[in-house]
């Protein structure tokens, strides 16, 4: 790793001490230009000298969003600067997404091993999506869940014997289409009567014997959603 300059943004002194020590003992290539506790100090330091790396804590001054702003502004004004987020927000996934959208190169959670040389190296090498293990774990778990749901979806389609027309029908029901309107769809070559028949069959397949009483279109659609036959995030009409 070639030498580089870094500005550390951190408002808790005790944390700063630890972070500085990490740089000192593990990342000798780094030169700490300065530390900032808030926005104004950040810009002051930037005016003095633009660093190669910005190590950014998100929770400054009690607000979670200052960090995101700083990241965005730095990335806009100084695109060459690599921004690596180093934050204790171990649960705020929304914040992670925001800061990634704001142009951060990666996120390191202040847990586990905290910041290691590895992550800094990756960031400096231009890699995007630098994550330490704890955050990666969470991301992967989320990812797995989604994939699983996808699988669930495929499984459900097979298990409940849903063909493409059933899926189209259910999806459009969910969007509020009436049977007549669905019968008009280009992708549905059926009349209203056959659609009614189809609905009855669907109910028979998706509900057990005892549950079939009084099931209307809404109930049917909700059941389809519960069984992952329909994807709530992917409801759109065909036309």
């Amino acid at each position, binding site marked *: 790793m070639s030498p580089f300059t870094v500005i550390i943004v951190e408002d808790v002194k005790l944390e700063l001490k630890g972070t500085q*020590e990490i740089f000192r003992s593990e990342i000798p290539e780094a030169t700490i230009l300065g530390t900032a506790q808030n926005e104004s100090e950040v810009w002051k330091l930037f005016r003095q000298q633009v660093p190669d790396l910005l190590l950014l804590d998100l929770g400054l*001054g009690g*607000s*979670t*969003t200052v960090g995101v702003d700083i990241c965005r502004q730095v990335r806009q004004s100084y695109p060459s600067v690599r921004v690596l987020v180093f934050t204790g927000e171990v649960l705020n996934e929304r914040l992670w997404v925001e800061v990634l959208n704001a142009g951060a190169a990666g996120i390191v959670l202040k847990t*586990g*091993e*905290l910041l290691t040389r590895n992550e800094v190296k990756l960031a400096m090498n231009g890699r995007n999506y630098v994550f330490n293990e704890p955050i990666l774990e969470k991301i992967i778990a989320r990812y797995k869940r989604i994939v699983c749901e996808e699988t669930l979806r495929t499984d459900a389609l097979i298990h409940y014997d849903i063909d493409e027309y059933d899926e189209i029908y259910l999806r459009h029901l969910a969007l509020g289409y009436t049977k007549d309107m669905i019968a008009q769809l280009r992708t549905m070559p059926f009349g209203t009567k056959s659609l009614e028949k189809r609905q009855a069959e669907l109910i028979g397949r998706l509900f057990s014997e005892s549950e079939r009483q009084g099931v209307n279109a809404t109930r049917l659609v909700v059941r389809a959603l519960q069984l992952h036959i329909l994807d709530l995030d992917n409801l759109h009409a065909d036309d």
Partner: protein
Amino acid sequence: MHSKHYVWLTGLFLALGMLSCSRSVRPVQGDVLEQLDVRAYEMRYRDVKETERLAREALRLSGGTDDVAQLNLAYVAYQRMDFDGVERILRKLKGNTHNQVYLLCADVMTMKTVQRTGDYTAFFRAMYDAQRRMKRIEEEQEDLSELEHVFWLYSCSEFHIIASTYYYYQGQEDLSKQHIRKVGERYLSASDTAQWIYYNYMLGSGGLVDAPTREEVTLTEFDHLITAYRLSHKKRYLYFEGNAMQALAQMVRQHYGMLRTRRPEELLLLEVGMKAAGEDDLSLALCQRAIKLFTTYDDMFQMACCYRTMGQLLFSQGRYEEALSQYARALHQVNRHHLNYYHCTDTLVLYDTDYPEVSLEAMWLQNESVKTVPEWIAGIREQISQTYSALGMKWASDYNRNVYLDILQLTNQNDELEVRRAQLQVEQGKLRLRTYFVIFLFLGLLVMLWAYRRRVSKRVFSLRKQLDDLQSGEWVPASVQQLKEQEEDAEEQLAATRLQLIKCKQQNVVGRARVSLVHAILPFLDRVRGEVIRMKREGGVSEYRRTYIQELVNQIADYNDILTEWIRMRQGRLALNIRTVELGSLFRIVGEGRQAFEQKGVSLELHPTELKVKADEALTLFMINTLADNARKFTPQGGRVEVSAHTVEDCVEVSVCDTGIGLSPEDIDTLNNNQVYDPETIGNSQSDQKGFGFGLANCRGIIEKYKKHSELFRNSLFGVRSNSSSGCTFFFRLPRVLGVVVFFLFLPVSGMAQSARALYDSLYHANLREDYSLALDYGDKALGADSLDHRTEMGIRNEMALAALALNDWETYEVHNARYTQLQKQLNQDATLPEYVNRMEAYHRNSRLLLLFIILLSMGALWLVYKLFVNRRLMIETDVQCQLDLLKEEQEEALRRQIGILNDGTKQNMFELQRVYVQNQVLDNCLSTIKHESMYYPARIRHLAQDIHEGGRVAPLEETVNYYRHIFSILMQQADDQVARPGFKRQSLSSDEIREMLVSVLRKGGWLASDGVMSGGEEALVMADSVLMEFFCQQLVQGLAGRHYLAPSSCRVCTSHSPSGSFVLFELNVSGTMLDDEQISRMFMPSVQGLPLYVARQIIREHDTYSGNPGLRLLAQSTDDGYRVVFTLSKK
């Protein structure tokens, strides 16, 4: 009414009467017939057989049409006590003739007959008829023939005499005297000697003469009797002679002494005539002569009476045996009567050894076809009873007395009539009232209609005025007023709940601030762990690391202390709301969430219960809901979740039992015993839900809180156990509240001992014991007691009579028996005076018809008047009234709607309140747990770190740190779980409002400078939660003041924003207090005293997160003359 109708009818009748009179059936042999009739009439009291013969002759001559002959024959039948015969003849007569006079005679004869038989209904009917006829005939007296005149006078005098006799026997002496006086006044002429004699005899027989002294009375009576006797003797009217002598006999017996002094000549004459002297002999002789006369005359009734009198006389002379034989003869006459006409083969005897259940007399009386003469027999029996008593034959005496009493009671039992009479009386009264009413009503209505017309006009005028007032708001009707008051109440309630809600929310945000402190601890913990990891890697402990770890641990410990302090500070504010909770109603609320269960195909069974516990209602509901939801999550389709409650010693155990997957023994152990555990590890991983969640931990926390709160909850607990079949049961116990058992003490309603009744009982029992003198004593006391009613007195009198009888005390006996008889008659009389029965019936009928007619007429008239005069005005009035009502209703409706809205607001507040309240409690529990668990570890870590430096291993330190972090994050997660639902309300407020909030807080504390409000920029709308912002201002100022960063009149507030910007900036400038960098930077950091400022920071943070526009700030900056605090809110 009455007069109108009857005048008309009377006229008609009179006309008919006159016609009939003139057409009186008198064939060619008119004179012969008349002679026969008159003769027959005259022979009545001499020789009845002759009367009969003559009458029959007349009848034969007239071809069966002679009225008078029939009347005479009727009399004959009467004398012979052939009462059926009398009825027959009279009926025939009534059917054939129209002659009013003879009809009157018939009525009178009927009266005589039925009086004898005791049929008082018929008596009064006949009496009434007779009276009516008398009135009619009176008007036409001049037109009567001689014979008719004779019979007219006879009838009238007879009428009054009979009436007088009746009233006398009923004990109504005044009426009796009235009637007899009428006889004397009007109807007597010397021509009709018989009636004259009868009149005198009546006066002489007692009770009808008024005189100043008793003596005078007796003497006057005696004179009358002598007159009667002399005349009847002269005229050989055997009937009256016998009667007179009988009466004289009694009088002589009673008043011999006085008579000797005052009427010596008459007495002497009598004595000479009877060839007897002295009271005993004379009276007996007189009586015997009377008997003889009656025997000749052959009048069974009179004979029996005479024998009775004889018996009485003998009794008074102490000749008891002889008296009895006289009585026996009297009874013999009675038997004769019954045998002759009713073919009764049963005979009366002196006494019946068989002592039948129902006496023969009673049977006769109750047999309608047997026309007994009750008084006749009663009198005899009474005397017999007395006599037997004198002879000491108690049993026989009792027998006779009972018969006597029976007769007295039975003679006048006419229940049916009583009812009918009462009915008719009521109806008649009503009808009469109605009729008068209708007439008056008609007149009244007429007048009223006129007045009404005028009133309506006035009303219309006032209504118009009212309408104007209502429109202008001058008048507020009562209902509107009421609603206004209700509205005020609703407003108050809303305000009250709003205040409570605000408090709760404030507490909630403070709780959330504490939670964020907990969050602040975690990074340090992670740092420690990071250092430990590095230590392990390096294989040693550098000085730097050790120091750093110390510093970190110290910081953690500090924060823990701060947290502890902050938690302690709130003590007393988050108090539990302990009261009696009805589990049954909570179950019902839980049951409302049935849908969720049904959707999953799990049945939810709630066992209704009457049990009550002492607990916080909101928290208990929360616990049951949590457990039920958990059970639902872990029970597959087709399963069952049961919620029930039962008692366990002094607690109530609420259990939620499911047929779900169940838990392993280790899990159960963890749940029951461990304070801290990772919920993800509990429960079968086959469930598709996200683990148990913190619900159970929260429930346990609540129970722990109860236990800390008071000794009352010492036996409360929370736990879980596996079911024998499948699934598990979660349960918690809370102290039981016993229902209030009310014991009703039934006080026996002890009736007040009615002294009279009690004494009567004693009297009765004394008699039974044959202690007669004691009985008499009791009786006297009883008679003197208060609360003596007639019935009781009757009973007393009877018993006393019996006692006196047994003691042979005839005087006492007479007194009591007489009173008893009087009471009995009164009693019967009240129930059996059907005077108006017949009269009423006819009257009633006619009156109703008339009433109907009048009503129809009046209605027609009224309708006409109304139509002509009143209708139009009413219509106008209705119209105006309608308008008025409409307007009123509009106002009411508006108010009601408003009240509805307010109430909804209140309900909403209550709902939120409950939710926030529970959240606060649970959060509190979490924080307390965190505090507890965290207390120990920092010191331990510090210690271990020290150890390493001195050559120890890293492993123990690593272990401890890991473990600490593990439970810490679990607990933090639990706390977060509670805070997950934001109570944040997005509202648009104007920046000026926010500024005003801050300004007013400053002003209240005196911190505001005189030019404290600096307006900078126009107003803008911000997105904020008003409750939180108010609290923010309070906390900010409180925090600054608490640190002495404020001085009086040192603060200024201003707002600013740029038109294109998305924020509004608020500045609080404080002059005169200089702060150093340290103070500035640490202003919003956690510190022991710094909770208010930390809360302020929390509030801004929440606005940052939830107002949809991140980037809000709260910071402090130094200025030239002090410092300023700046915060931003997002623009709408």
